[in-house]
């Protein structure tokens, strides 16, 4: 290529080019709103959260327990058999200390997203690649003390304020 081509196209602009009117541009914003049907499994999961319960499901075939609920086991393609009320405790599988919001604003106190392996779900081991983990955040903890393997428990919103959402759990905090 360097053998054949001497010139590569692509005109690079700077932010100043926009500010100073050197380039023409058009702004627009997408208006895209949805009411996603929650359906059987996730609808029931959300109803459980409103009650203060984390629901998992058990596969009718491989007996695996996972969270969040789904109607089919993705591994054996058999229907999930029943809901399982799980404890609101678990173990930190992995975490991060994040200094950037979703829209790239910088924050001084880090958010602590974590994958939390909920107790009572399938174990992750050398023979198994599946566990019942969920994405959430950690709170009431010194960022320097967070570690993989840390035991945590959900901190719920007051019952009256719960809406049937993953944010009905405010965060998970260390079990002391």
């Amino acid at each position: 290529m360097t053998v054949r081509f001497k010139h590569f196209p692509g005109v690079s602009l700077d932010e100043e080019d926009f500010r100073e009117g050197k380039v023409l541009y058009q702004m627009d914003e997408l208006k895209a709103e949805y009411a996603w049907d929650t359906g059987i499994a996730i609808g029931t999961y959300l109803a459980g959260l409103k009650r203060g319960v984390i629901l998992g499901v058990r596969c009718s075939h491989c007996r695996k327990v996972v969270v969040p609920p789904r109607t089919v086991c993705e591994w054996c393609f058999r229907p999930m058999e029943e809901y399982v009320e799980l404890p609101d405790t678990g173990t930190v599988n992995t975490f991060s200390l994040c200094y950037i919001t979703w829209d790239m604003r910088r924050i001084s106190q880090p958010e602590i997203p974590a994958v939390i392996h909920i107790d009572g779900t399938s174990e992750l081991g050398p023979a198994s690649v599946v566990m019942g983990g969920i994405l959430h955040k950690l709170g009431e903890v010194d960022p320097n003390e967070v570690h993989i393997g840390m035991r945590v428990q959900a901190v719920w919103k007051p019952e009256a304020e719960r809406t049937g959402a993953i944010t009905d759990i405010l965060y998970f905090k260390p079990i002391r």
Partner: protein
Amino acid sequence: MGMRKVAVIGAGMTRFVRRALETPKELSWEAARMALESCELTMDDIDAVCFGTAPDAFDGVHMNGEYASDGAGAWRKPFMRSFVGGGTGVFVPIQGWYHVASGMFDVVLVVAEEKMSSFYPHAQAAFLTIFDHTTERALGPNLLWIFALEMNRYMTTYGLKKEDIARVAVLHKRNAAAHPCALLGDPNITVEDVLNSEVLAWPVQRLDVSPVSDGAVAIVLAAEHVAKRLTDKPVWIEGVGWNLDTAYWTNRDLVYPRYVEYAARMAYEMAGIKEPRKEIHIAEPYDPFDYKVLHHLEGLQLAPRGRAIELYLDGTAERDGDLPICPSGGLLGVGNPIAAAGLMKIAELFWQLRGEAGERQVPGNPRRGVAQAWGDLMQVGTVVVMGR
């Protein structure tokens, strides 16, 4: 029944830049035209067009494939856009491959384009909506979260050190200094620079990450009988593989990319490769973040689990090493216009295997290379093996 042989016979690309003046159509056109010129074909010779671009949220056009299709040469041609998130750049040549291998087309133009700068104010915000709309988005996640979560799991499991992982970023950015299209090539960058860069989402720091960019890449694929007529240096697509893991990413162990392994095994089987480490001479694994390369090298069976870093520590990965890794400079150095970045790796192997990579040329007449991309919720692996 033997499969129909398919060759790459031409390639072209734009510079990867932070903000391009060109529209997505124009970027696609610039790359497509170069690819055609490189093998002295015209649009009359093209039977079908395959197009790759990652989420519409970047370019900012619903059905972006349709919108950009004229720039990619799709006027009055069979045209399709395929889509496997970040894996798209190495998937779209696979799509081109099966267009030709099916016997339905002899010459196919493959174009990948991304204009991330259209997303305003910052492209990273587009990634909020890759998360599950009901169970995850309410937490306000960003893309850095999942990378950081995965990197932490990987580092902690194997006891890897950040200063070692930083050597990946250093090598790739140094390699990119020799790439005329590179956005972040830097011959003098050091491990200290990476370690001193801003912490975004620990353990991920600014220089662990590839830059948001705009750009396009195109290649031309041809069936064997056409390829042999058109060039005396065809580069064959010897193997293809792709694989998608469960969407429930929090139910998986992020320490190891099984989807990459499965995709690689599929491609190796087709290519007849039994010992990848010995039979592959150049690797272009996907490197949007430095630790990802290590992850992917392990999935590609080019290093034992937890030990890919050794390839960087002992010099194996360097351009004149035993297994040069990302001699292009990769996404970390050249830039990461998502789909285009993956196809850039295919173009790099094409140039390297033909001995046309100029300053970046890997010594020793390499005969075979592997390119790989990855995407979605740490979920998809796409692999292409090329040889001459």
